[in-house]
């Protein structure tokens, strides 16, 4: 306890500690996923159920022109599940905020954004696991992609960027919400219209005029159309660039806003 104790903070550059703090917090949140059986189950089972539901229950009634429904569906359901998966970030952030542990983190000499980096990055890993399971199920129910290896890499890249951007955005909700319950609703209200009023499950051509206008121009549709094009060869056009711009923009703004809210907590 005296100053001769060897257990004192070590001297390294602040960049070294920024990386170290972030990695420590990422490991914390990944351990949460592994140690929390309920969450792990929902991560594995939900994508299977959704895939089967749309493929067999709704699929038969939806006309997707030249493409088979299962080929049409995979891009949409991947993006939808990633979007809902990203909202769990707000839950994790809000849960930490309502418990004493947030005071603990804020009283440590650590990088203040590390707590948010930990949540968003671990959620990204969890969503990747979900997506992988979903694609495996898709193959089992008749999915026939034409994507090359490079196309697949591009799919993974854009899906990760999209998920990470939404995770940071939902971190903002988690920081602003007054309770964990409120956060659950926020996420739902926010993501529901963006994923369903899109080209995820049905072609936008059948929608009423204004809904269609929204559906065709909102960011989630750009991401879906890009991934769909890469997977099954539908035309991508400008969707690819628009998806990249939207996702990078959302990510950049969300990181800045979330970090500054986090720093101002208690001020």
């Amino acid at each position, binding site marked *: 306890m*005296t100053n001769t104790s060897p257990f004192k903070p070590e001297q390294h550059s602040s960049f070294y500690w920024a990386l170290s703090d972030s990695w420590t917090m990422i490991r914390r949140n990944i351990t949460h996923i592994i140690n929390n059986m309920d969450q792990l189950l929902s991560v594995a089972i939900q994508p299977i159920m959704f895939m089967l539901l749309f493929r067999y229950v709704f699929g038969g009634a939806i006309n997707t022109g030249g493409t088979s429904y299962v080929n049409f569906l995979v891009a949409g359901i991947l993006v939808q599940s990633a979007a809902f998966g990203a909202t769990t970030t707000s839950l994790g952030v809000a849960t930490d905020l309502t418990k004493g542990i947030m005071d603990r983190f804020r009283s440590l000499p650590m990088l203040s954004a590390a707590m948010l980096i930990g949540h968003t990055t671990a959620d990204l890993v969890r969503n990747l696991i979900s997506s992988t399971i979903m694609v495996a199920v898709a193959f089992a129910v008749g999915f026939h992609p034409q994507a090359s290896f490079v196309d697949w890499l591009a799919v993974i890249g854009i899906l990760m960027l999209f998920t990470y951007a939404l995770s940071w955005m939902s971190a903002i909700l988690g920081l602003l919400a007054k309770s964990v319950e409120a956060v659950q609703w926020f996420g739902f209200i926010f993501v529901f219209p963006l994923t369903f009023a899109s080209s995820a499950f049905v072609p936008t051509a059948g929608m009423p005029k204004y809904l269609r206008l929204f559906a065709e121009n909102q960011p989630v549709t750009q991401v879906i159309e890009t991934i769909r094009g890469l997977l099954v060869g539908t035309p991508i056009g400008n969707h690819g660039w628009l998806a990249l711009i939207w996702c990078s923009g959302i990510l950049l703004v969300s990181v800045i806003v979330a970090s500054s809210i986090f720093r101002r907590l*208690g001020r």
Partner: protein
Amino acid sequence: MDKTYAIVAEDLRKSYGETEVLKGVNLKVERGTMLALLGPNGAGKTTIVRILSTLLSFNGGRATVEGLDVAEQGDQVRGVIGLTGQYAAVDEYLTGTQNLVMMGRLYHLSQAHARERSQQLLEQFDLVEAANRKVKTYSGGMRRRLDLAISLIATPPIIFLDEPTTGLDPRSRLAMWEVIRNLMSSGATILLTTQYLEEADQLADQIAVIDHGIVIAEGTANELKKKVGVDSAVLSFQTTKEAEAAKNVLGEKSIIDTTKMTVTFPVDAVHSLTQALNALEAAKITVVAVDIHKPTLDDVFLQLTGKPVEASTNSPEAKLTK
């Protein structure tokens, strides 16, 4: 840097809108000693700790910890403090060891040091058996011990203990006191907040009594107790008649409660209780039970403010700490 005082607060002020929570608090804690902040819920104790540990901004005054300005040098301040709050700040989904190592790393210990120190603390706090269990399965006392262990992982010279025993059962409270006493012997400077006079009395070198955001009395436990008065003994009897007889034996300073069949009298010296019991035995009066009533926070407040403790549950602080 102040050589004598490790923690200094001068005219500290904090308000939420119109509500003043701290109205100019002055505190000084000598290096290597413990100061207890004693006061009821909502008095401002937790607000002071949150300000000194950089969790909360303040509106006026100045505060330094180890000579570092709390408002200006937050990062450095966080490197020299350990904080144990009212609500055990532990991660439920991690094991005890995982909690300690993680916090050690965030305090910027090396991985090897974090592991070694965790093992030491698990032993010191009697948590070795539970080390690899998820904290979710811990009892309240175990959580508090782990929480305190975490705040010591980087051997900080300054430790804040915010109501470390509130909500603990008597046995766990005694165990916690023992742990805190051991901390003292290691040379750390400690600021403790508590609602219990006995706790402050047992642990602290100095006590500051705080009420409505202002320090209303300061001194050692003995100095404060002299202001408040001495312990009293409550003797119970089988019949009212016996109680009345006892009052006659014990004299003018004793007070009788005929409905409860008790007699209360001040115990100003160690031998006065023995004398009283001997006198009663000589008079052939049977005492059924003896209770010693120690001065409580209520007595302190009654004496210092002329009012009993108010449970100010509507204050902003009470809301914030919930």
